[in-house]
């Protein structure tokens, strides 16, 4: 049996008196597209943080491609092929768009510790940065400071940086929140356009987006995994109707 891309094994995250994630197990196969659903405070971001390494589970294990990474730093997981975006946009606000992309592209290169040559004097990295900027087209221009970018473009940059190094596992935390209909559509297009072997987990509140990008849906509620099912199963399940569609946003 081939290893799962992401194998979350009975993880718990305890914040003081609050059990934000309470014994969740989740297996996502290589190349699978999965959407995580659940009302505010269900523990979706906390679960992402344990997969990405931003948080270490109180108990339980996280495995990527069959390897236990529970104790590994986020940067090690990035080198294993994991990339992510953040629900709250997480960029380098005082740098330009180009510099942000540059940092993303450089992150997995051996030259990232170089101290002598100027950062701009690495042709292969500069080329890749130029390709990404051409592909994603930031209307304000690559030399715009990120803090002066529109919200929509900041979200776009967040995404561009996550896929810059062609990750094998991609975690997207509410990639379309706050975006216009057109912007949302282009995000959907991007996710669907990713190479087939890329494993993608998306936290998404917009059901249209969710149904467009994934075949399987996992529902969290109060830190627990309620169920995993297809679109039809999710829509038919009464508990889910009550938990999510009833009282969610």
């Amino acid at each position, binding site marked *: 049996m081939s290893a799962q891309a992401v194998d979350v094994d009975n993880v718990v995250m305890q914040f003081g008196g609050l059990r934000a994630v309470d014994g969740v197990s989740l297996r996502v196969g290589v190349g699978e597209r999965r959407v995580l659903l659940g009302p505010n405070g269900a523990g979706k971001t906390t679960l992402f943080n344990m997969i990405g390494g931003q948080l270490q589970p109180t108990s339980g294990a996280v495995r990527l491609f069959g390897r236990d990474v529970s104790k590994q730093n986020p*940067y090690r997981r*990035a080198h294993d092929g994991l*990339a992510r975006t953040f629900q709250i946009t997480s960029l380098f606000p005082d740098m330009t768009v180009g510099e942000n992309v540059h*940092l993303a592209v450089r992150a997995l290169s051996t*030259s990232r*510790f170089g101290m002598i*040559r*100027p950062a701009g004097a690495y042709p292969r990295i500069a080329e890749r940065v130029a390709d990404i900027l051409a592909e994603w087209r930031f209307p304000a221009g690559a030399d715009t400071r990120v803090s002066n970018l529109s919200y929509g473009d900041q979200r776009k940059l967040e995404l561009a940086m996550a896929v810059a190094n062609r990750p094998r596992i991609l975690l997207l935390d509410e990639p379309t929140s706050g975006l216009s209909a057109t912007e949302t559509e282009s995000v959907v297009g991007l996710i669907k356009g990713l190479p087939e072997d890329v494993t993608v987990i998306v936290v998404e509140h917009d059901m249209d987006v969710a149904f467009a990008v994934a075949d399987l849906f996992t529902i969290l509620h109060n830190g627990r995994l309620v169920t995993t099912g297809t679109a039809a199963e999710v829509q038919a399940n009464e508990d889910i109707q009550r938990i999510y569609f009833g009282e969610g946003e």
Partner: protein
Amino acid sequence: MRPSLVAGAVAVAVFAVAAALGGLLSSYSTGLLIDCLIFAVLALGLNLLLGQTGLPSLGHAAYFGVGAYTAGLVMLHVSDSFWWGAAAAIAASMAVGAVYGLLALRTSGVYFLIITLALGQITFAIAFSWRSLTGGDDGLRGIGRPDLGLPGLNVDTTAGYYLLALAAAAAALLLMRLIVRSPFGEALRGIHQNPDRMAALGYNVWLYKFLAFVISAGFAGWAGVIFVYYKGFISPEAVGIVVSAEVTLMVIVGGAGTLIGPFLGAFLVVFMSHVVSGYTDRWLTVLGLLYICVMLFAPKGIVTLVGDAWRARRSA
């Protein structure tokens, strides 16, 4: 002409004028400039941590002192070669920086500030109490001028030593310029702004901070070398909290995170301390007032203030 060529030409011209100054000024004024250059190197080193990486080290006199004592000890007991003394001093400063960095980087924010301060005070206490090595509060005396092994440069005179100090500061500035423009320097700025995203992208944030700490200590040690050979003595005072506070202020006044700001900040603070000490012995009070004024009117430092004003005029 390309802007980098212009900048290069300006830098060479500044260096030439500065070098010529040594022959023209009085020995007192030249001595003052040497002090400025020494502290400029120290501030340059601290800026890598404070300005680039956002790590507020408040004990940088420790690495300065370790460098100065080491170079002094080499001169007194081993060799009068400048290069041996400098190599040993920088190595010792970086080694102490590595140990202190391991301890300090277990914390962050204000705790980082406090632990670097405490480590600085421990270093001061060691310099003060390890009499057999450091001479205690008498310090090390009778350290002569070093032998550079370069014909034609006589560093026994103040004017000659000034040339050495100028070359040492220029070398430090060029090396620092390479570092801050390199991928490593770019990563430090990324870490300053958003360490969590840097980690998620794949950067080993801790290792970058540690390396920045050690390199910064090396620059401080280099400043200590130029200092001790100039003064001919070193006492625990040079390792103390006042020096640490002064150099922190130099970085902030000049412009933390800019290349040239800490350099200018050093000149400003050293000159001020000379002027002020002619009128009052309340130098620390003046230092505090200067800090408050900068925080109120130019929180990003003078270089940034001037740069912003310049850009505003040009675009207006």
